[in-house]
C-alpha cells in the first residue's frame, strides 16, 4: 500500500513504528501533488523545500529520542485564508495576492507545536465566498472524481487535495457549509465544529459570527485527532469557547447506546436529487440496523435559513472587508493612472460647467479603484448586499430581522435536540455540478448551502461523511449535526458509520 493511501492515524503509526520517515511521507504527498495538481488545481502554493526541511527536522528529533507532538511528521494542507507568518495568504483574491501576514494563526501555531508538516496553501472561493471554488481569482479547482465538475466550496482546494490523496488532512473554514459541502462533493469527511471550538485568530474573516475552522480528512477518526489538536480557548479570540477539550480519539470507539437520530423533515423536500435522497435514507437505515431509533423532526424556520444567512453573513462581510482599501496593505490601484483619470474627469466637468469638486477626492478615488480592481464580483455583490442591509432605514427590515430569524432557527435546533441526539440528512441537494453551471446564477449557487447554513446560524456542530455514489460515480454526503460542544457524540456516530460502511475508503482514479 502506498503511503498516500493511508489515513492520518495510520501514517502516524507507521512513522512511530519506524516503518516510514516523515521525509518519506512528505515526499510521497509532494510527489502526488506534482503528478496530479496540474489537473486538479487544489493548491495555490506548495513549498517543497520548506516541507522537506521540516519533515527532516522531525525525523532528526525522533532519532534523538526527543518527545514529539501528536501530529509529528504528518503533512497538512491549509486553506489559504489562514495566516502563516511571512508566507503569502491570499484568500484567493487579487486584493491579497502578494500579502504576507506578520503572524501565525492560532491553528497554525497549534499545527507547528504538534510537529505537523505544512504542505502548502489550498485554493478557495475568494474570501471564502462561494460554493464551487470558481470564485477564486487565482485559478479554478476541479473535482478529482470528475474534472469537469466543481469540488464544491469554498474549501474546495482542501477537499480536493484530500480526495486526490495529495494530503492526508487539510484545514478548511466553514461559514455556511464551506467545509461540509465540498467534503460531501469530494467524498471526504469534513467537520464543522461548534462555533468557537477552534480559535478564529488568524482566519481572515468573512462573517465573524458564522466562521469556523475545521478539518477535512479521510475518516471521522482522523477528524477527531485534528479537532483534539486544534481545539481550545484562545486568549487572542474572546469568542472562542471557554470549554475543556475532551480526548475525542479516546472516546471514539465507545458505543452509542440508545442513539436517537432525527431525520429533518424539511431536508427531504423539493430540490433534493433523487439519488442523493436514496443514499441518505439508506445511511439512516444503516444506523437503524445498528440499533438507533429514528425520529421524524422538524426545523420549521429552516426555510428562512438561506435568507438569514445571506443577510447576516453579507452584513458582517461588508464590515470585515472594509479594511481592503489600498491604504495599508494589499492591492492598491496604479496611482499615476488614477490621478490622470481624476484630472481628466475634473477638466471635463469644468468644460461642461459642472462642479469639479463634486468628483471624488484623490483619496476616495484611490479607495474606489483599489476595491474595484482588487475584489471579484461575488465579493462585491455581498459587500453591496451587506452595506444595504445595514444602512439606515433598511437595517431593521433586513439585518435586525435576520438576527431574529437566526434566533428562531437556534430555537428550532434546541427543541429538536430535546428529542434526539443527532440530526441526519443530506449535505447538499445534488452531487458535484459541472463547472460554470451556476456561475451566472448567484441565487442557484446560494442554494447549495440549503442544508448546511443552519448549523452556522445556530452555532451547532456538523459533519459530512461519504454515504454513497451517484449513478455517474460522484460521491454523496451524509450530514450529521449535534448540539453545541457535543462533537464527541458526532464523531462517534460518524466513526460508527464508517466502521460499518466503506464509502469513505473509495478514491478517484486520477
Amino acid at each position, binding site marked *: 500500500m502506498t503511503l498516500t493511501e493511508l489515513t492520518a492515524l495510520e501514517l502516524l503509526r507507521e512513522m512511530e513504528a519506524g516503518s516510514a520517515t516523515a521525509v518519506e511521507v512528505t515526499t510521497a504527498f509532494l510527489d502526488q501533488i506534482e503528478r496530479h495538481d496540474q489537473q486538479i488545481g487544489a493548491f495555490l502554493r506548495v513549498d517543497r523545500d520548506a516541507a522537506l526541511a521540516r519533515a527532516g527536522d522531525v525525523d532528526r528529533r525522533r532519532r534523538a529520542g526527543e518527545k514529539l507532538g501528536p501530529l509529528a511528521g504528518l503533512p497538512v494542507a491549509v486553506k489559504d*485564508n489562514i495566516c502563516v507568518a511571512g508566507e503569502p495568504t491570499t484568500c484567493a483574491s487579487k486584493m491579497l495576492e502578494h500579502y504576507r501576514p506578520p503572524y501565525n494563526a492560532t491553528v497554525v501555531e497549534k499545527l507547528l507545536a504538534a510537529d505537523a508538516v505544512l504542505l502548502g496553501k489550498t485554493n478557495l472561493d475568494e474570501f471564502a465566498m462561494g460554493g464551487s471554488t470558481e470564485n477564486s481569482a487565482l485559478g479554478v479547482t476541479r473535482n478529482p472524481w470528475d474534472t469537469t465538475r466543481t469540488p464544491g466550496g469554498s474549501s474546495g482546494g482542501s477537499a480536493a487535495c484530500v480526495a486526490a490523496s495529495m494530503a492526508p488532512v487539510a484545514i478548511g473554514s466553514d461559514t455556511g457549509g464551506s467545509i461540509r459541502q465540498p467534503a460531501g462533493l469530494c467524498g471526504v469527511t469534513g467537520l464543522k465544529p461548534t462555533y468557537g471550538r477552534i480559535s478564529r485568530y488568524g482566519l481572515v474573516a468573512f462573517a465573524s459570527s458564522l466562521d469556523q475552522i475545521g478539518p477535512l480528512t479521510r475518516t471521522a477518526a482522523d477528524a477527531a485527532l485534528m479537532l483534539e489538536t486544534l481545539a481550545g480557548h484562545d486568549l487572542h479570540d474572546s469568542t472562542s469557547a471557554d470549554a475543556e477539550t475532551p480526548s475525542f480519539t479516546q472516546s471514539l470507539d465507545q458505543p452509542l447506546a440508545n442513539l436517537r437520530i432525527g431525520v429533518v423533515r424539511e431536508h427531504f423536500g423539493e430540490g433534493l436529487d433523487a439519488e442523493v435522497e436514496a443514499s441518505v435514507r439508506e445511511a439512516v437505515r444503516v444506523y437503524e440496523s445498528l440499533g438507533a431509533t429514528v425520529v421524524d423532526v422538524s426545523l420549521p424556520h429552516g426555510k428562512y435559513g438561506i435568507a438569514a444567512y445571506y443577510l447576516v453573513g453579507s452584513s458582517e462581510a461588508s464590515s470585515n472587508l472594509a479594511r481592503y482599501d489600498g491604504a495599508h496593505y494589499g492591492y492598491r490601484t496604479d496611482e499615476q493612472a488614477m490621478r490622470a483619470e481624476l484630472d481628466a474627469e475634473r477638466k471635463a466637468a469644468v468644460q461642461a460647467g459642472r462642479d469639479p469638486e463634486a468628483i471624488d477626492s484623490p483619496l476616495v478615488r484611490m479607495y474606489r479603484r483599489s476595491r474595484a480592481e482588487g475584489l471579484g464580483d461575488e465579493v462585491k455583490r455581498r459587500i453591496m448586499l451587506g452595506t444595504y442591509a445595514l444602512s439606515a432605514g433598511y437595517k431593521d427590515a433586513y439585518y435586525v430581522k435576520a438576527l431574529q430569524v437566526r434566533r428562531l432557527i437556534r430555537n428550532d435546533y434546541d427543541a429538536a435536540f430535546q428529542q434526539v441526539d443527532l440530526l441526519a440528512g443530506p449535505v447538499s441537494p445534488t452531487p458535484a455540478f459541472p463547472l460554470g453551471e451556476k456561475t451566472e446564477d448567484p441565487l442557484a449557487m446560494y442554494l447549495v448551502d440549503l442544508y448546511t447554513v443552519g448549523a452556522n446560524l445556530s452555532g451547532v456542530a456538523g459533519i459530512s461523511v461519504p454515504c454513497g455514489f451517484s449513478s455517474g460515480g460522484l460521491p454523496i454526503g451524509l450530514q450529521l449535526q449535534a448540539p453545541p460542544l457535543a462533537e464527541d457524540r458526532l464523531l462517534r456516530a460518524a466513526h460508527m458509520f464508517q466502521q460499518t460502511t466503506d464509502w469513505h475508503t473509495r478514491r478517484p482514479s486520477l
Partner: protein
Amino acid sequence: MAYTEALAVSYDHPFTVIIGLETHVQLLTESKLFCRCSTTFGEPPNTQTCPVCTGSPGALPVMNAEAFRLSVKTAVALNCRIPEFTKWDRKQYYYPDLPKGYQISQFDLPMSEDGWLEIADPLNPDDVRRIGIIRAHLEEDAGKSMHDEAAGKSDTRIDLNRTGTPLLEIVTQPDLRSAAEAKAYLTELKLLLMYLGVSDCNMQEGSLRVDANVNLHIETDGGKIATPIVEVKNLNSFRAVERALTYEVDRQYHEWCDTGRKLGDPGVSKQTSGWDDAAQRTRLQRSKEESSDYRYFPDPDLVPVVVSPEEVEAVRQALGELPAALRSRLESQYELKAYDADVIVNQGRAVVDYYETLAAASGDPRRASNWLQQDVLRTLNEMSLTIEQFPLTAAGLGELLKLVEQGDLDNTKAKDVFAHMLAHGESAAQAMKSLGIEQVDDSALETLCQELLDANPKTIADVQAGKMQAVGALIGQAKKKNPNVNPADVKRICLELIARM
C-alpha cells in the same frame, strides 16, 4: 469680552445659549483597548503596533479589562447608572487612519448613562449648577495622518501608534448656558479625572479633546426660535473652548439677524466646524463627504461585557474622596473659606494631603492655608516644581508655622526662615540658628521692656490716658536692642507692666 457681559449691551433680542459638550478622555492604561501594544506618547511612528491594531486580516480584538475598570470608575464618579450588560459596536467609515474601516465603540448599550457633574455657577460662585451627563462610553482611538505637502507633493503618511488607544467619551446634556460655564465644567471634569487617576488629561498630547455643540434660543416678537446647531470639533485647550464658543454665539446671532435661518427650516442640518486659533474664528467644514450613516452593528469579534451590581458597588467604595466632597470637608473641618478650600482642592490630591499635614503640624489651619497658597504655591510656580518635588515637608514647614503661631517668631522673620529652609534644606530650628535668630525668653523680655518704660515715662502716661498705640514707639527701640524680640510680645508685656503700675 465674554458674551454674558456683551449680551446686555449689544444684542437687540435676548437669547439663551445652549451648549452640550462631548469630551474624549484618553484612559491611563499601559496597553491599548483591544491589544497589548503600548500607549506611550511620542514614540517613532508605527513602532507601537501589532496585527490587531493595524487591522491585519485575521487579527481579533480582545478587551483590556483595565480600560473597562477605569471607565466604570469614572462613570460611577459622574453619578451614572452602570447597566449590567454592555456590548461593542462597529462604527463604519472610511478614513486612512482608521485601518479596519470601522471603529469599535459602544452605540446603543453604552457602559454608563444618566449621570451628572456639579460645577460652581460662574455668575454666582456660591450657587451650584448640576450638568447632566447623557452617557460615557468607551471606544478606540484612530491613528494620525501627517500631511506632507512639501515640494508640490501631496503625500500623507499614516502613524498608527495611537490606533486602539482607549477613549472614554463623556457626553453632556445641552445644559451649559455660556462659554464660561463650559469652561467651568471642563475644569471640574478634568480635576475629577485627575483625582480618579484615570487620565493624565494632557491636552497637548491629545489625552483630553473636546467637541462642542452650540446654538441659541432667541426671543423674538413671534416667540422663541432656535438657531441651527453647530458642532465645533477638536478643541484642544480650555481657552480654545471658551473663545470658540464665545465666537460662535456671536456668529450665530448675527447670522440669524442676516438670514433668519433657524433650526427646522428645510435644508438646515447640523453643521460641523473647526476652531482656527490663529484667526480666532470657527470655520465651517465641508459636509459633502460626511455621511452620517455609520451602519452600526454589534461587533461579532467581541463578547458582550457583563457587570454585576456588586462589582459597581466595589468600585464605588474604592473611589476615594472626590473634589466636591473634599472642598466641603476642608471648609467644615478647617474652617476655611470656600474660596480657599477651592484653591487647595484644585491643586490636586497631593497638595490637599500636604495641606492637611501642615494644618495639623502648625496647629493653625487658616495660617497653614495662607502659607500654602502664598508661599508654597508661589514657590512651586517659580521653581516649576510639583508638590511631590517640593524640598520642604509639610511636617517641617508645620514646625515653622507653629513657632509663628506660638508667637516665637514674627511673620517677617518667618519668611526669612522659610527662605533659608528652602535654600539649605534645614529644619526650622536649624535655620533660625543659622540666621542668628534666637528665641527671647519672657523674663529677659520683661527686663528689656521695664528698661524701656523707665526711659520713656511719656509712653506710660499716654497709655494710662487710654492711647494704647503709644506702645508702638517702644517696639522699634526694643528691636534695636535685641533683633530677636517678637513685636507682639513686646507690646503685650509693656501693656502688662503698665497695667501693674
